[in-house]
């Protein structure tokens, strides 16, 4: 076969390619994560992993299972739809183990985060210039955070 003799080296070259492709396919089958493609072009197990991350905010429903008294108090006031952890911060650790006590809040600073007067805030939102309004006195001296209107009870 004179023809093959003069093209033999080309087949050797091509043979290396074919071998490389076959090796690649074999390795590929072994390396691709087995949940890849379960839902789409990604690792299906990633969904479970992301969903399994720990929770830091317990959610107001969880708070209310124990603190039903506070929840009831809130229904009477303007803060009825403000969730517990909006002011108290993330407390899943406390819900997990009630012996872990959250830090006491500093109302003189905390309330201003929402209620400090600014022309940028929506007009209907209750705002005060805290400095002239309270002069450093903590807000809870007059307002009860869970039902803030003074007429609704005020502080003891």
């Amino acid at each position, binding site marked *: 076969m004179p023809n093959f003799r003069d093209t033999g080296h*080309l087949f050797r070259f091509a043979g290396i390619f074919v071998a490389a492709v076959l090796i690649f396919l074999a390795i590929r089958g072994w390396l691709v994560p087995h949940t890849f493609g379960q839902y789409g*072009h990604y690792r299906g197990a990633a969904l479970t992993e992301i969903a399994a991350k720990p929770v830091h905010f317990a959610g107001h429903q969880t708070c209310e299972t124990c603190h039903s008294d506070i929840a009831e108090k809130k229904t009477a006031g303007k803060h009825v739809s403000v969730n517990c952890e909006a002011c108290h911060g993330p407390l899943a650790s406390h819900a997990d183990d009630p012996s872990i006590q959250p830090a006491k809040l500093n109302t003189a600073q905390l309330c201003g985060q929402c209620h400090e007067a600014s022309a940028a805030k929506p007009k209907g939102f209750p705002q005060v210039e805290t400095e002239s309004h309270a002069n450093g006195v903590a807000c809870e001296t007059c307002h009860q955070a869970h039902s803030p209107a003074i007429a609704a009870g005020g502080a003891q």
Partner: protein
Amino acid sequence: MQGVDGFMYPNEVQLQWSVLIVLYPFVTGLVAGAFILASLVRIFHVEAVRPTYRLAMLTALAFLLVAPLPLQLHLGHPERSYEMYLTPHRTSAMAMFGFIYLWYLMAVLVAEIWLDYRRDIVVMSQSVTGWRRWAYCVMTLGSSNISARALEIDDRVGWLITLIGIPSAFLLHGYVGFIFGSIKANPWWSSPLMPVVFIFSAMVSGIAAVMLLYMLAAGLRRQAIDVRCVDTVARYLLYIFIIDFSLEMLDLVHRIYEADESFRSLDFMIHTKLFFSQIVLQIFAGTLAPIALLGLTQVVKLPDLARKRIYAIAGCLTLIGIFAMRWNVVIGGQLFSKSFLGYTTYKMGLITREGLLMTVLLSLLPLFFLWVLVKLLPPWYEKQDTLTVVG
């Protein structure tokens, strides 16, 4: 915030793609351009540039070997990059990189160089001694058939591979342009002209680089430069440069005339943060100046020495200009906020993983590879003549 004028979305302040990603399209551009120059000989039978043929092929190979390195170094997890081969995402332009790269490296460049050098390799494997003999023996793949018929078949197969290689070279670099051009979120990049501009600027830079390397190599070897050859190369450089410049200007004029929502922001950027790299380096020093110089050699009859000097200057300016163009695309596209309300600043590290030192090293690496390749597979034709006698 430091380095920010106006308003940026807070996650936009830091640039994601550094100078290494500037280097990457520059390097692949040189590959594609050098290959196109080689194909002038092979496919289009421009015999005058034959002295650059083998050098162009080796240059393309040397730069292609380096092309993935800047990408690897920039990845947050380089050890995971093999995933691009395992699970390429078919809607991603970037996913194709590995495959196009391997195709171009193995099926085009290595195959063509191997076929072209096969006779030399076989002859060397029988004439040299020591470790080089082993290297050549491996490269023969165990076949020492260099009969006239075998070489004729090699030549025909090589021609076919070059024919496939031209669209492959376009694909390699056009897709790099598409990586940028297909990002609709970024008006500086999003343009169907981007791949075309990338291909033509690639040809310009590759031809200029091979021309410079050829003249440099001739100087180092104390051989006379084939003036007819560099004249022809320079003429092709000029023609393609004019097409490239027209395309870039078309893009620019289109943007200025349409003046869409992003225009005010981008216009301001060009006049401030990008003024030096875009207007001065890319357009004036890197495009208009070399076009004028190359044009001059076509219009005025100059002595050989003056022409060679002009070619050398024009070639250097061209490379600077094309690098500036890549810089303006990659870095420029990240300096403005997608809110069009502000600008950030690129701070290049010096000896960091993606810093200046690494860029310089990666730019020199292909020259080292080229030196090795030239030692292993001498691209000089007069030497080949002596080989013919030996063979």
